[in-house]
């Protein structure tokens, strides 16, 4: 546990030194929420889309940041060194998830706060919107760690993002209502986690509460745990 905390502290120190990345992580989603608010002034679009964006952003951004961070750890030789220390693989993954999870809390609070300022109206409980955004961010982070194990180079690491995220984006119900999709794609969408985040956020926007969304939240949580396990299993102590 203490090695998890030491690792999370180290990752946070690295983030503290990289203010521009942190600023981008927080300002960029706000800018896009702001653009949509501006574009659809006077319509209820932000009320419907705002929560969905707040859910989608963290998945996308945290995935990219963690998969690149882990790839950097690999190429700088620090991962090889870490593998010779008492740090367990699970502690390394948990440390990363914890550090980026904390960043996700800040991101979710700022982005949701900004969306409210520019006119987003959420009928359901607001804390749930924030909580689901954080959970999805941690999912993005753990998926990023798992995916980075499949990448051997930075180029490959960056391309894991479209590989893992775009199919979810296409089938999550944003581009086309899920009941109009070809059956097979509808099945696929039922397995992927972003579908559930989007569904939860839509329901919350429309005024549903915890009891209506708990099942879908559980699916996202299960995916997050699954990605942690995958991230640990794919990490190799010995390399060629």
């Amino acid at each position, binding site marked *: 546990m203490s*090695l998890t905390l030491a690792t999370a502290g180290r990752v946070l120190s*690295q983030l503290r030194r990289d203010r521009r990345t942190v600023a981008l992580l927080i300002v960029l989603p706000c800018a896009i929420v702001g653009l949509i608010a501006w574009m659809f002034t006077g319509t209820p679009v932000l009320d419907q889309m705002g929560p969905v964006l707040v859910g989608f952003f963290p998945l996308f951004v945290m995935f990219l940041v963690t998969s690149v961070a882990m790839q950097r750890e690999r190429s700088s030789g620090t991962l*090889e060194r870490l593998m010779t*220390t008492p740090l367990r693989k699970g502690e390394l993954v948990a440390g990363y998830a914890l550090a980026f999870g904390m960043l996700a809390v800040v991101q979710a609070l700022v982005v949701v706060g900004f969306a409210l300022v520019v006119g987003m109206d959420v009928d359901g409980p607001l804390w749930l919107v924030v909580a689901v955004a954080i959970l999805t961010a941690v999912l993005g982070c753990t998926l990023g760690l798992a995916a980075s194990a499949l990448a051997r180079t930075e180029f490959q690491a960056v391309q894991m993002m479209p590989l893992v995220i775009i199919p979810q984006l296409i089938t999550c119900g944003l581009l086309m209502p899920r009941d109009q999709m070809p059956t097979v794609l509808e099945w696929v969408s039922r397995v992927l986690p972003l579908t559930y985040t989007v569904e939860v956020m839509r329901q919350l926007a429309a005024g549903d509460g915890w009891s209506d969304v708990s099942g879908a939240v559980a699916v996202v949580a299960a995916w997050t745990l699954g990605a942690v396990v995958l991230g640990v299993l794919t990490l190799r102590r010995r*390399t060629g």
Partner: protein
Amino acid sequence: MAAGDVAGQGSGVDGASAVQVRGLRVRRGGREILHGLDLQIPAGQVVGLLGPSGSGKTTLMRAIVRVQAEVSGDVVVLGEPAGSPGLRRRVGYATQAASVYRDLSVVENLRYFAALAGLRSRAARAAVAQALDAVDLGAFEKQAVGTLSGGERSRVSLGSALVGEPELLVLDEPTVGLDPVLRRDLWDLFHRLARSGRTLLVSSHVMDEATRCDRLLLLRDGALVADTTPADLLADTGAPDTEAAFLALLDREGVR
């Protein structure tokens, strides 16, 4: 003779082996890099692992700290099979390229590796201060590693291996790119560590550094060419310096 003298100053570990390697074969990228190595690394000494680039020094070190895949044969480290979880606290490893966090300061790097070695609060602070002092980086402790020179960066990497106070230090070319004064200081440090009972395996492709070791392992093309002391190497070959001695050995073995 030199080896015996220095070992005699150790703390009761003479005679024991810190590392025993038997029949070690390693494949990398479809090619066999080490061809059935047998060797011993005596405890409490500074053992030099010398050989030209590509001779398998790094691969042998990676096998000892057990981050190397496709290994066959036996490697026993401090009485345990290489890679046992219990060994990770007892063995320090510095890779050839400085494997530290460039975006963190010197002291942040050392603190993190001290924490990973299980050191807490006061013990950790003392170990960090000691490691800083050992690699002579106190003046830069707050500076980001990425802004340091190559030699300074490799000293941060070395400090990060020292900070956990391991019994066995595996150091891959720690003196490359350092000026002569610093090199001498580091070799002095290695001998101080050995006198306090640690074992050091230090690789180098610079033959001059051989004379600074208690024992020498000469590697070429994945095979052990010699396991000797600097004095014996010169005496046996009658060569004026270690570089010539190495060449003479290769001639004798007909491996050239």
